[in-house]
């Protein structure tokens, strides 16, 4: 057996033994408390109706002996599945493996399905079906819809555009889908162009127009603020000159563009540092879950 394989096997066995030990101590079990919820119908007109149901709130380890607290099998199972998925994703660090691939597929599938269902109920049902057929929507899924609500036929336009978009799936006449697509691309470009011009272009230009030398109200020079403004303006100009390729980077332009490279390097360094910090935060987030929620350390 290779030395590295032996070491990793020992580590895995030790990890597994530790898990068994923690599980035998009663960790990795979820306890919940039943909380009654009282509510009233939200329709302002008509008779008010009272509704009662129970919801379950997860409790801390110290509260598990209390009389209204009970063991939750479904949440415990969920906790163990989440822990398994976390470890399965971590297993990629050792090497690509079937457990990782399976878990990755589950994550992608669940996320896509969840997004699809939520979008269906918030967009197609609430924004289209309920707007076009409010009476039917009230009877079927949305009892809170105002009984005086009238159908809004403007919503036929997005309905027709959506149907045209689905034409792409048809073997014949897929060109029809180009019309709604053209509309969506045009509308999106139009909306984005204005905002980018206003906020990113003009807004940033305005923010860059600043004095090299800043004086206080008593006429004295504010050194730090002046230095900061100067570095800022020089940085912006030198970076812009670096990206200005219509002129040969020779002579003075060469030195300014090199200064631009230095500014860019500092920016990329800061971006990288922030990214590293983000990744470590994600790792510590998962470890907090494993240690606290699962293993109860």
């Amino acid at each position, binding site marked *: 057996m290779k030395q*590295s394989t032996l070491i*990793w096997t020992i580590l895995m066995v030790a990890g597994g033994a530790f898990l068994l030990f923690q599980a035998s101590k009663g960790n990795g079990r979820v306890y919940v408390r039943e909380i009654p919820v009282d509510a009233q119908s*939200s*329709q*302002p007109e008509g008779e008010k109706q009272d509704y009662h149901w129970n919801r379950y709130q997860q409790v801390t380890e110290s509260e598990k002996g209390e009389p209204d607290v009970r063991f939750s099998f479904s949440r415990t199972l969920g906790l163990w599945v989440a822990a398994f998925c976390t470890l399965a994703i971590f297993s990629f*660090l*050792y090497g690509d493996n079937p457990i990782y691939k399976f878990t990755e597929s589950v994550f992608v599938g669940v*996320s896509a399905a*969840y*997004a699809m269902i*939520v*979008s269906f109920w*918030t*967009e197609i049902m*609430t*924004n289209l079906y*309920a707007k076009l057929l409010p009476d039917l929507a009230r009877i079927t899924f*949305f*009892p*809170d*819809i*105002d009984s005086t609500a009238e159908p809004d036929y403007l919503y036929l336009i997005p309905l027709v555009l959506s149907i045209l978009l689905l034409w792409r799936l048809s073997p014949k006449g897929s060109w029809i889908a180009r019309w709604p697509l053209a509309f969506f691309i045009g509308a999106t470009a139009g*909306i*984005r162009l204005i*905002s*980018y011009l*206003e*906020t*990113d272009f003009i*807004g*940033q230009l*305005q*923010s860059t127009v600043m004095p090299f030398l800043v004086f206080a109200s008593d006429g004295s020079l504010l050194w730090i603020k002046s230095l900061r403004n100067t570095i800022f303006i020089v940085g912006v100009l030198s970076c812009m000159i670096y990206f200005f390729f219509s002129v040969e980077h020779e002579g003075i332009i060469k030195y300014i563009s090199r200064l631009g490279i230095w500014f860019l390097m500092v*920016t990329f360094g*800061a*971006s990288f*540092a*922030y*990214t*590293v*910090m*983000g*990744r*470590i*935060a*994600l*790792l*510590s*987030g*998962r*470890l*907090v879950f494993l*240690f606290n929620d699962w293993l109860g*350390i």
Partner: protein
Amino acid sequence: MLNFLQHLDRRWIFLLMFIAVAVPLIMGTTFPETPSPQVLAVFDAVDNLPDGSNVVMALDYDPASQGELQPMASAFARHCAIKKHNIYFMTLWPQGISMIQKSIDILQEEYPETYKGKYGTKYVNLGFRAGNEGVIKLVVEDLKKSYSTDIHGTNLDNIPLTKNLKNIQQVDLLCNVSAGYPGSQEWVLYGSSPFDIPTVVGCTGVQAPTMLPYIPDQLTGMLAAIKGAAEYEQAIINVYPQLKNNPNAKEGLIRMGPQLVAHILLISLIFLGNVIYFWERKQGLHQ
């Protein structure tokens, strides 16, 4: 030794990183934080509002990034709760619904006298709407064109907080916590900047450099990555010391311990890598 390091299996580095993050977490190591001016700007934006002001909390992230962003969202919720603000929760991410619930749980469990049983009068959950920046454009001009109901399907005209709210230009502050698209940048582009809505954001480290140019003209302040969250928690504890005894209010501070150790490890590895590189160059292994 250098020869051994040259051919070091990267899995040992992963293991080192695991230990560097895990040990301070288990030991609960924290380090003192001093809030930066940028974080203090966020703190002041929430704190200087009169008690009971209207705040939109747009939580645009999912469980994948909650390790980095949940401490920020929780800190925003606690700070707003201390100030007894009215909170409008919304999200542009489908998975953001469960993230909103975490903040609502904080309001109900830690501040029951202000928020328990006050749904609709002290806080409202508008839930998720598909449409990315299109939703932002609508809610800043006409809220009810995009959101006719809240997350429970209740008509907004029947909820006291939203009954007279035409659009979110009427609110006093917009707090956004975001992990990407659509998120902070879209809120600035389509919401805060064109309509001058006072906005503070909390974002991931990856997003932070793209958001920095918007400060201070288009954004009041920003919490960048877990460091920003920890500094914000410290800023809140400094002014409201009652939170000192709440371990949940120090989530970000606790996660800065592993950050420090992991950063030291990373810097050491980068240094070591450079030493090996120059040694190899001296040996003539690099052209």
